[in-house]
């Protein structure tokens, strides 16, 4: 709160200072005499930009680039002597002001978001508008004229496209297209209905004398109706994103708001030209033309967008060598699609929406993972940033005396009609739609839909674009539009949340993706298609299936890199995401514990690696190949601190055990572990982030993945065919391991912590490594995406005993308590000899451990996010590694 106050104060002060100079500034602005002004500004206070801001931006916004040329003379004026420094405000004024305003609006957002108590009640968009009022008031106070306004050019060309592109790019396609019918009905029929009914009713009231003397004809009313009819995507998104209604409801409102733009633009253009033509000129031909133009504009725009989207997909197929800028293509091409549509007078919004929608799948598959991330973030930055600016400026624009024309009847009636007809339209259309929808919309949903009809900046932009030579009451329309916008965004926005809560609208379930659900979804899809096939009906599922076949067969082939195709399956993506999450949490946990000893016992795996390295390179050379040249980064953790540290730790553990084996192990490590961090060089380069891509490293990580998978499948495997226990002792060892497996699984898992305890007996480090590794590896596991996984090799059964951690098997052999089973013997050659000493220790502690597990099982397993307090005290930190540094 304090910060908020302070910042506000600061802003006030800044503007107050500038106020002192405001009058001259304003006066000068009339002459537009920047050049002369500059020289006089030399020694004045640094806050002057704020004053000048006014005039310059105005011109800058209205005719962008205009003032650029004007101030381009590097100071201007005849030079008498060489100036050491000179004040060249006009030279930079436009970009400077643009940047400054962006900064100011973002700071507004920062202030607003600093306090969540407020944003929980009042949506951010409303607060931003209020901030706009304040800022506008300051400017007004300073300049006595509103110098900053949201002009249509700026809005439609520089602020809107990225928001819409963002919407298209992140559109949940399946949801969107499966509700397409309903959305289209709302967007087309609903909008037409709103426009016509509002226009006609206002006209009727005018005729009835409800608003006094106004110079507005029927056509102008209809024009006004058409611009005020459309639900605004920006406003809807801003409000609904914070409310979290269920996804179907959201997509209906949001989809409608996006698609009705085509309708609005057409209606607006048609009526605009009708107004120009004058009532007498309009005949059936013109009306038919209007209807045709609707289809052309809407579908042409969508088609154009799709073409651009597909072009973009094609383009990203071959950006492999310019990865550093490939993320930029979507913005450029998206923007181009918008401009092209605008140029052809098609619906630009539809074009850019469909550009985003059609390319998302392909470019996400084609581009490098990092680029995809870049796109996602950059998109959000741009969209959110300009959304903020839009709302702030909507507020600022209001503070303008010249704008306001008050006509109580007109304004109130507009508000009333908008609301009433929206409700009627929604309920009537839904009533019809529900006869066709599989899942009917409930009354509550309909209420929210009608209430969610927010108007926003698009309407305002269109209103400002009206030609005041043709429409006498333009200012009335603009101010009415502004009132409508404020009313809907602020009032309805604020009340939306309580309403949603009060009506108990189904909320979006906030839950983690689970693999099984995704798999089930897929089952559903195929099942429904099959049932439709069998029952001989052509339904949605049938169509969707046909489409996906077509898409699979042709589109993917054309637009997707062959190498990318394997990674794009949805289920697989989920799998991958979960794996990544595991890995992250694993590393986070390891770091949280303040040490990286969880990888200390790596040598346990070395043997594994060695073994598989040899074995699998024969069995499946393609994996190795795949691994070696896999482009995908193995997630930062794979390469970062872990390996380099591990070398040392590792070594020293062993060292503690037995001197003689040190050399062995060192040798082993050197052979099989990738090299440490020293090789990890950053070069300065504009086009590359060079990272260590040591082949060995990749391979090593892969091996570990294999290992973990193998282990984690054990329990599952058990379900099918429990491996025979070979010896008493082994059995004992083996079973305690089970739960740990299980939790690893669960883990899919977040917590490495607890399962560790399950067998962190004695040496908790070892516990870490087991689960930890499994986590770590899952990441990489996907790297091998389509490859065969040794864990599932047919000889899995044979490998079952492998699940007994090597050291355990080894231990038994070693301690001589039990005769080694045949399987154990089979494994013998691969087990590391250098771990022998550790083994007995584990065995001895095992029993206590299982007790502990019995004691506190639930909490451990259940809290996925928080790690339960360790049952065993954390292991003593390993002796300082530098002691053995010499061996490295």
């Amino acid at each position, binding site marked *: 709160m304090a910060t908020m106050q302070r910042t506000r104060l600061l802003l006030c002060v800044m503007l107050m200072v500038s106020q002192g100079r405001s009058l001259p500034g304003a006066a000068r602005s009339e002459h537009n005499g920047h050049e002369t002004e500059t020289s006089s500004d030399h020694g004045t206070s640094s806050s002057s930009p704020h004053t000048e801001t006014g005039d310059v931006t105005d011109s800058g916004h209205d005719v962008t680039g205009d003032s650029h040329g004007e101030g381009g003379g590097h100071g201007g004026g005849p030079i008498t002597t060489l100036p050491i420094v000179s004040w060249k405000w006009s030279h930079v004024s436009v970009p400077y002001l643009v940047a400054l305003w962006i900064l100011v609006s973002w700071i507004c957002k920062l202030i607003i978001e600093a306090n969540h108590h407020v944003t929980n009640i009042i949506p951010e968009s409303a607060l931003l508008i209020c901030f706009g009022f304040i800022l506008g008031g300051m400017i007004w106070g300073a300049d006595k004229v509103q110098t900053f306004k949201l002009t249509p050019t700026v809005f439609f060309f520089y602020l809107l496209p990225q928001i819409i592109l963002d919407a298209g790019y992140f559109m949940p396609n399946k949801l969107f297209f499966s509700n397409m019918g309903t959305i289209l009905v709302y967007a087309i029929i609903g909008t037409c209905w709103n426009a016509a009914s509002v226009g006609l009713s206002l006209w009727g009231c005018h005729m009835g004398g409800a608003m006094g003397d106004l110079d507005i004809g029927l056509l102008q009313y209809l024009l006004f109706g058409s611009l005020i009819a459309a639900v605004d995507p920006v406003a809807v998104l801003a409000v609904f994103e914070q409310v979290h209604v269920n996804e179907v409801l959201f997509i209906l409102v949001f989809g409608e708001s996006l698609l009705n733009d085509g309708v609005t633009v057409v209606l607006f253009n048609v009526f605009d030209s009708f107004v120009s033509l004058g009532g007498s000129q309009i005949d059936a031909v013109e009306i038919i033309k209007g209807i045709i133009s609707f289809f052309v504009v809407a579908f042409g725009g969508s088609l154009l967008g799709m073409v651009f989207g597909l072009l973009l997909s094609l383009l990203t197929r071959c950006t492999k060598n310019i990865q550093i800028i490939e993320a930029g293509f979507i913005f450029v091409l998206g923007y181009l699609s918008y401009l092209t549509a605008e140029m052809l007078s098609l619906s630009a919004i539809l074009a850019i929406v469909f550009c985003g929608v059609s390319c998302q799948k392909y470019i996400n598959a084609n581009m490098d993972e990092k680029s995809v991330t870049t796109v996602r973030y950059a998109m959000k930055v741009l969209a959110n940033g300009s959304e903020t600016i839009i709302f702030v400026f909507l507020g600022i624009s209001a503070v303008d005396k010249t704008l306001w024309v008050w006509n109580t009847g007109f304004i109130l009636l507009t508000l009333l009609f908008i609301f009433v007809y929206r409700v009627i339209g929604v309920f009537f259309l839904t009533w019809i739609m529900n006869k066709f929808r599989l899942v009917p919309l409930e009354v509550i949903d309909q209420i929210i839909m009608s209430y969610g009809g927010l108007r926003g900046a698009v309407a305002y932009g269109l209103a400002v674009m009206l030609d005041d030579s043709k429409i006498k009451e333009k200012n009335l329309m603009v101010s009415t539009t502004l009132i409508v916008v404020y009313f809907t965004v602020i009032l309805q926005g604020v009340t939306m949340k309580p309403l949603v809560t009060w009506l108990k609208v189904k909320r979006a379930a906030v839950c983690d993706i689970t693999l099984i659900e995704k798999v089930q979804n897929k089952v559903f899809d195929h099942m*429904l298609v099959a049932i439709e096939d*069998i029952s001989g009906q052509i339904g949605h599922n049938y169509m969707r299936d046909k489409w996906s076949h077509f898409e699979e067969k042709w589109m993917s082939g054309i637009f997707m890199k062959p190498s990318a195709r394997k990674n794009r399956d949805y289920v697989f993506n989920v799998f991958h995401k979960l794996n990544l999450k595991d890995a992250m949490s694993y590393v986070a946990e390891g770091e949280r514990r303040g040490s990286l000893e969880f990888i200390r016992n790596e040598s346990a795996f070395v043997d594994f690696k060695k073994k598989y390295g040899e074995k699998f390179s024969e069995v499946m050379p393609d994996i190795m190949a795949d691994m070696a040249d896999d482009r995908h980064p193995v997630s930062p953790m794979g390469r970062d601190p872990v390996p380099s540290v591990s070398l040392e730790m590792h070594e020293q553990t062993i060292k503690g055990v037995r001197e003689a084996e040190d050399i062995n192990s060192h040798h082993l490590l050197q052979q099989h572990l990738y090299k440490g961090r020293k090789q990890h060089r950053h070069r300065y380069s504009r086009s590359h982030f060079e990272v260590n891509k040591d082949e060995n490293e990749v391979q090593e990580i892969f091996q570990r993945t294999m290992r973990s998978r193998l282990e984690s499948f054990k329990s599952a495997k058990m379900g099918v065919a429990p491996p025979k226990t070979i010896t008493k002792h082994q059995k004992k060892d083996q079973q305690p391991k089970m739960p740990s497996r299980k939790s690893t699984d669960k883990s899919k898992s977040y917590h490495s912590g607890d399962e560790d305890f399950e067998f962190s007996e004695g040496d908790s480090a070892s516990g870490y490594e087991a689960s930890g590794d499994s986590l770590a590896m899952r990441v990489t596991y996907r790297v091998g995406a389509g490859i065969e996984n040794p864990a*599932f090799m047919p000889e899995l059964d044979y490998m079952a005993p492998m699940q007994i951690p090597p050291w355990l098997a080894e231990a038994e052999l070693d301690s001589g308590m039990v005769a080694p089973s045949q399987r154990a013997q089979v494994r013998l050659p691969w087990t590391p000899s250098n771990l022998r000493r550790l083994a007995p220790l584990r065995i001895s502690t095992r029993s206590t451990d299982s007790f502990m597990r019995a004691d506190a099982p639930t909490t451990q397993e259940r809290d996925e996010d928080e790690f339960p307090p360790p049952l065993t005290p954390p292991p003593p930190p390993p002796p300082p590694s530098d002691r053995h540094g010499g061996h490295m």
Partner: protein
Amino acid sequence: MGSWQARPEQQQQQQQQQEQERWHYEELAHKSGFSTEQIKNLHKRFRQLSGNKETISRANLDSIPALANNPLKKQIIDAFFDKRNQWQDDEVGSLEEIGLEHFLMVMSHFRPPAHKSGEEERQAARRQKLRFLFNMHDTDGDGIITLAEYRKVVEELLSKSGAIGHQTAKAIADAAMLEVASINAPHMAPDDFYEGITFEHFQQILKGLEMESRMHIRFLDVDTTTMRCGKAPS
């Protein structure tokens, strides 16, 4: 003369037959919840599939061309012949051939619920649908989906989606299974192992899944089968 007399008789017979059929339909409608119109359509399709016979066999369904690409073809067809899907929970096993009634009963799993159904009915319907799904996975009918069974479904499911390898499919199946195990049996005794997914667990894991749109098919009152006659095997 005989022929003259035969006609009304025949007519009567026909009428009777129609009457019988209508009665039959109504009974089926009562059992399955379809409207008689829908049943008529489905019956038509049934005859089309079976080649105008009283019963339908696996081979009939197998030969539907549209099914050829469906990765779950086998499971779906099996589901039709599964006794458990006849809304009587106690029977296990599969039939060789099914009649119209069985056919309809299986189809009725996919019927959207009546528009104004209570919460309880909705829950029951959901349960039935889940049960159907569960039965589809549980091929041996022992009430538990073992890993092997589950894996099989997932593999087949993913096998058609191109690049996903066999092994990856297996890995996914395993990971999913582990997920189930961890959700349902987070604290097992050390000696236990997770045998497989029971129906209760199955319900538990799919708790969050919205079934309304996912397991419903609009059965039209209007006959669309003619539109695809060319494709149908008969």
